[in-house]
């Protein structure tokens, strides 16, 4: 049913519309529609816009968690951008996001392709693969901590038994970065697998049959048929995972707390620590704002790719 016909159905009188009513009706209908969505709009504004505006105000003030404080202009932003800790966090956030997005995408796509083949116990396999995504991060981070935290933990013990020394997965800054990134990929692969699986299900098999008849190899089919055909879904998954990674607090905070020596402090962890541990509300919110702006820019760029992508 079209909007016009709906509008007609809603009209209480059935008399033929005069010229005046013809011009008034759409205006009235627009007003009705506006009034209908108004409650939702008001709620959305209260839930999203109000905190955002309030946070924006906090970022230009020298306040506490209770008091708004004095207006300091862009001082919080200047101090943030001049802070080496901020740029170290930017660097780690980039590493964490790039590894998290592409690591989980590659793993998810690989598993989705594998699950398209006729392997025995496919359903059980699928269910088990979903576990890392389903299990609460608090539980999985505790499990990972048990796996790697002390020299007597299973993985360091295994490495020692293999003659690789006793790696300190969470105490060595480089290894801690790698561990946190791998943990993120491990958690995120099931989600990417589901998205890739759904996209692959939409690819017409006859295209592969035609390509096979034309002599295309499996790699050529994947490269020139599968990837372009699922590109829209791929970009969406990248956008979502980029947002998930940049905003990911529990994965990092529960496993390393941002350490050792800030090696795994991402922007969101830095923002949290600045506001709630150092009680520097203005600078902490400024970090969050800079992070949000960057995220919007990246998301818009990826969204543009979706619009250009092959259907």
């Amino acid at each position, binding site marked *: *049913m079209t909007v016009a016909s*709906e509008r007609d*159905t*809603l009209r*209480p009188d059935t008399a033929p519309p005069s010229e005046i009513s013809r011009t008034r009706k759409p205006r009235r209908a627009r007003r*009705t529609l506006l*009034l*209908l969505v*108004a*409650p939702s709009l*008001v*709620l959305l504004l*209260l839930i999203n816009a109000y905190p955002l505006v309030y946070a924006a105000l906090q970022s230009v003030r020298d306040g*506490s*968690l*209770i*008091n708004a404080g004095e207006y300091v202009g862009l001082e919080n932003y200047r101090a943030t951008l001049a802070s080496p*800790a901020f740029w170290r966090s930017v660097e780690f956030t980039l590493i964490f996001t790039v590894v998290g997005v592409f690591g989980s995408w590659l793993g998810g796509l690989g598993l989705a392709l594998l699950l398209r083949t006729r392997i025995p116990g496919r359903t059980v396999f699928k269910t088990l693969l979903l576990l890392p995504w389903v299990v609460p991060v608090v539980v999985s981070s505790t499990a990972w*901590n048990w796996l790697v*935290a*002390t*020299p*007597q933990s299973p993985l360091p013990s295994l490495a020692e038994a293999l003659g690789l020394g006793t790696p*300190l997965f*969470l*105490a060595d800054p480089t290894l*801690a970065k790698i561990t946190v990134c791998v943990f993120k990929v491990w958690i995120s692969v099931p989600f990417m697998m589901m998205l890739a699986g759904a996209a692959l299900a939409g690819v017409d098999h006859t295209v592969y049959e035609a390509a096979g008849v034309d002599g295309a190899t499996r790699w050529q089919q994947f490269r020139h048929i599968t990837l372009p055909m699922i590109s829209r879904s791929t970009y969406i998954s990248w956008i979502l995972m980029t947002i998930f990674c940049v905003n990911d607090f529990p994965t990092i*905070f*529960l*496993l*390393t*707390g*941002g*350490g*050792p*020596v*800030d090696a795994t*402090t991402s922007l969101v962890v830095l923002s949290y*620590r*600045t506001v*709630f*541990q*150092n*009680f*520097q509300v203005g600078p902490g919110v400024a970090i969050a704002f800079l992070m949000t702006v960057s995220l919007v820019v990246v998301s818009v760029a990826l969204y543009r790719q979706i619009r250009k992508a092959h259907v």
Partner: protein
Amino acid sequence: MNTIDPSVPGRFSRRGFLGLGAAVGGGMLLSACGGGSASGGGNLKFWDMPWGQANYTAAAKKLTEGYQPADGLPGATYQGIQWANFSQTFSSAIASKTGPAVSTGGGFQAFQFAEQGAIAYADDVIDQFRQDGTADDFLPGQLDAMKTAKGYAAVPWQLDFRVWWYRKSLLDAAGVEVPTTWDELLNACRTLAGRGLFGFGTGAGAGNNLGSQGLHLMMLNNGGGLFDPDGKVDVVTEANLEAMRFVQELVKAKAVDRASISYTTDNLITQWKNKKVAMGIHTAGLDTDTGESDGDLQVMGPLTGPGGAKAGLVFQNNIMMYADTPSQKGSEAFLSYYIRNMKTLWQQNVVAGLPVLKSIVALPEFQAQKQKAKIIAEWAPVAKSFAANSKTLFGGLAAVDSSQPITQFAQTVLAGKDPRPALTTLQQALEAIVK
């Protein structure tokens, strides 16, 4: 699609529907904006942290519910608050005027909120305590620790110490005497390291402040600290440098587990349980944390530092009153009741902290806990606050304790790095935080 007939009674017209929507939305808006007060159905709200084992909350709730207010004063309701994000919980509640009238909380929370105008000073309660003799029941110096330029920010109710512990069986097996000085400590650590044991058990991983607090204790033991007598950040001092160089010696002697900089509290307790740690700095509840009661884990006496000084680190946990209260007299009456009757919590042995009242220390139930009794007897007289060498506690301490710079500092020093640049970095970072 059904048409809507405005003439049919009992069915919504378009305008009626919009009106209803507006009413519901408006109602939600009003309820969201309405806020609350520190009263809970006419009663005072008392917020309390989980200060002990699982049965603590039930005991504290029962104590609160046993409060019988005098005529005209409100009663009290109990609300347990988790440590996770507690600053956020309290701050948002206070800002939205839905916070408690009285609460326990972080050790420096009262001072922090007092500086922000959210605290009702406890001078009248303390005056009353002085008149009825309750003030004399407090351990020496504890009431004074709550004093600020504007008044008493809170009333202390229990003490949280950082002290040296040792596992007797491991020291006996290694033929090591319990150290009494830093030199003896270093020698003991070397002997223990030869047996693959750690003499300075600590941890500075996610959410674990024992690493930084242990280093702080070593500074205090050497006459140093984080602040000068005026409360200004004063980290780069010879006393602190000497203490941290001593820790560096301990690291070189393999007294510190290399992985400890990433240890959570659970990781550290596991290492104590697994008998990998022979000595270390911990809270008063180490034996409770490891689930041991056979006396193998024992508290050392305070060590004598190179300058001959002894010191401990203590956090004076307190009960505070808030400016937003349905009745200030009611808040004071409830706080007085709680302090006077809190001994039941120690009689039931549900509190991890140590008592601040002499009458509770003297209880047979408390004296039966030998390690805790030893801490009160030997460590309390020499213990210094987190603010040392400042004469008073202040709000900025809340931002220092467990802050990012102090954790980073602990991880750097415990990794064996040069302490001088680490102290300089800490000085700069703390100056930015403590204003």
